[in-house]
């Protein structure tokens, strides 16, 4: 029944850790079976680069942990969901039934996260959604064993609205977003909070996901001369939007603000270059956050670049799993005890202190306001200008 470790793509750090421990004459930890962590991420399809970063982040944490958690060696099994829920579901079933994983982490796309929710819940598998931000998972689709050590869309849209209202303008702005679930959530939550504060938002523009040419929208923005633009795009759309903003010389005319994905330090900023300068975003993560310092250096040493959301999420997921396992001495088989351990104690992570809301297992997080200013190398750097401490999603009642 034991699969041959050598033929798996799973990182063999676990076995390496055991060998090292034995070599140093440390107390024998090889008494137990390796703990199996499944990582469901995208290694093909539209989120490939995010998936590779997430894997790298988690691998870095496992290496930092010496290949063991809670006294047990760790084996990492990585599966590719291709960004498609159907594939993700099949892979999760395989990880549960065939590989017998103890915990599951990962998931980039909200569609995949929502699709696997029932399967992991039925199997009673402790699951950590590292990246997907769909509000529903903290509300009607919350599940007792599905933890989310990252933001909800609301947490970023809400704080973005607070900052904009207090520091940029109270009216005369417009919003533009990619027309799909995430875009609707971020922009909708921004507008709601902004109006609750007493502000008013002008035109709301939408463009199809995967828009190649933003010029019709940009000319509209140039004509309206808004006091700010709140925008949500991710990945290639974000790069193109920023570059075309610069191309039409709107970058210096209009204050641009958005959720962090628009200015992701790893995924967007290197490609967007100077087009990202001057932007503002609210994000649960920042390369300049004090808590991130050691991680940023380690990640740069490993991959030669600054971490963005996906790599940080991979690392943080590992930290949370590790903290939970330490609290139960490496044995998550008593699900309720494992759950309680995670709920009880705040966890220090590289995105700051984190505690889980017992209503929905959603992380309560510090949200950073980042401004893109030229860093030491001249490249735009997400620099923290303000921190909203302990932001909590309204949850099932809200």
């Amino acid at each position, binding site marked *: 029944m034991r699969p041959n470790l050598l*033929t*798996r*793509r799973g990182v063999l750090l676990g076995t390496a850790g055991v060998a090292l421990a034995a070599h140093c004459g440390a107390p024998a930890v090889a008494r137990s079976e390796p703990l199996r962590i499944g990582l469901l991420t995208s*290694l*093909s399809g539209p989120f490939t680069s995010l998936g590779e970063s997430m894997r790298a982040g988690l691998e870095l944490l496992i290496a930092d942990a010496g290949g063991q958690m809670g006294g047990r060696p760790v084996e990492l*099994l*990585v*599966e*590719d969901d291709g960004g*498609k*829920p*159907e*594939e993700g*579901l*099949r*892979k999760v*079933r*395989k990880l*549960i*039934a*065939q590989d017998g994983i103890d915990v599951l982490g990962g998931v980039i796309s*909200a*569609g995949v996260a*929502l*699709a696997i*929710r*029932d*399967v992991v819940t039925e199997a009673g598998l402790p699951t950590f959604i590292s990246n997907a931000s*769909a509000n*529903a998972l903290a509300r009607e*689709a919350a599940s007792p064993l599905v933890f989310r050590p990252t933001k909800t869309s609301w947490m970023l849209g809400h704080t973005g609205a607070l900052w904009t209202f207090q520091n940029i303008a109270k009216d005369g702005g417009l919003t533009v977003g990619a*027309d*799909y*679930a*995430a875009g*609707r959530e971020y922009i909708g939550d921004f507008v709601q909070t902004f109006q609750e504060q007493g502000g008013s938002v002008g035109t709301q523009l939408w463009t199809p*996901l995967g828009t190649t040419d933003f010029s019709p929208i940009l000319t509209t923005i140039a004509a309206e001369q808004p006091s700010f633009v709140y925008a949500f795009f991710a990945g290639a759309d974000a790069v193109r939007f920023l570059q075309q903003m610069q191309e039409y010389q709107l970058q210096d005319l209009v204050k641009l603000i958005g959720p962090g994905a628009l200015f992701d330090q790893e995924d967007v900023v290197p490609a967007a270059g100077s087009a990202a300068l001057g932007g503002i975003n609210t994000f649960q993560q920042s390369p300049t956050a004090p808590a991130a310092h050691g991680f940023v250096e380690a990640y740069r040493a490993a991959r030669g670049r600054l971490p963005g959301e996906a790599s940080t999420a991979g690392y943080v997921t590992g930290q949370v799993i590790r903290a939970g396992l330490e609290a139960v001495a490496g044995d998550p088989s008593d699900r309720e005890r494992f759950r309680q351990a995670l709920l009880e104690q705040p966890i220090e992570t590289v995105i700051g202190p984190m505690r889980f809301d017992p209503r929905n297992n959603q992380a309560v997080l510090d949200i950073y306001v980042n401004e893109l200013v030229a860093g030491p190398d001249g490249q735009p750097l997400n620099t923290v200008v303000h921190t909203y401490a302990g932001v909590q999603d309204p949850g099932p009642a809200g």
Partner: protein
Amino acid sequence: MRAHAWLLCLPLAGLLALFGGDYHLRFAAEILITGTAVMSLDILVGQGRLVSLGHAALFGGAAYVSALLAIHAGAGLMPVLLAGIATGMLLALVMGLVATRSVDLFFLILTLVVGQMVYELAFHWRTVTGGADGLRGIPALALHLGGASWPMSGARSLFLLAAGLALLAYLLARSFLAAPIGRALVASREQPVRLAALGYEVRRLRLLAMVFAGGIAGAAGALYPFVNLYVGPNLVHWSMSATMIVMLVLGGVGTLHGAFVGTGLYLLVQTYLSSFTDRWQLLIGLLFVLIVIFLPDGIVRPGWRRRQA
């Protein structure tokens, strides 16, 4: 040859039904259901040389309707199947009316365009389809007969249901192709002008074939949501149609049963090879190209063809 294949298949299915675990049974059900849809595509591609890049819209469109009926009306097996078949046929009719005047590249593009319109609908009509996030919380399938009802939610009953559907659809497709209309479809591929001279309406013939294939794809689509209790827009996207063509070619165009072999091969490679290498797409692309170049009849009947031609 074919008899041998059947003799091999039946005990294999029986063994799986008796001893397979939940995961393997669900996987097998997914292969059989997707394979049925791919087989219906083979009627068009293999016999009519009508390469459709919109077939996933028929399959996935039926899956959406079936899932919506189950969620909002608590529909059981029979109504869900009927609705799926009707949806598949209706969408195929629309697609056919737009596309059957053309062949080759124009047919390909027109089916692609109509299919993508279905995708846009599924992706943007958020209040009904759940948009990009798809539909979840689909109740488990049940069969209501008279006053009684049997749950069909378990992996084993799903597998048996899928196997029954695949077998039935296969027999139906075979008899369709053996019937005069099926022969005429082959003739419309080989000699459309002569066939028209004989008094056949080639366009109507193609339309009928599309509606028939759409019905089978719709029946398969109706069951698909219950494998995962989830339906999302990827299922109707054109890239799913392209994947179905890849599956078909891997197994063998024009053989019907090759569709199941190709689907199984593709999904197995996708599920297992990707655990070992990030380059699984390169490998499946290479396999596909090699088959197109060297084994144009696919892997189920290497070498011997030309008998029926």
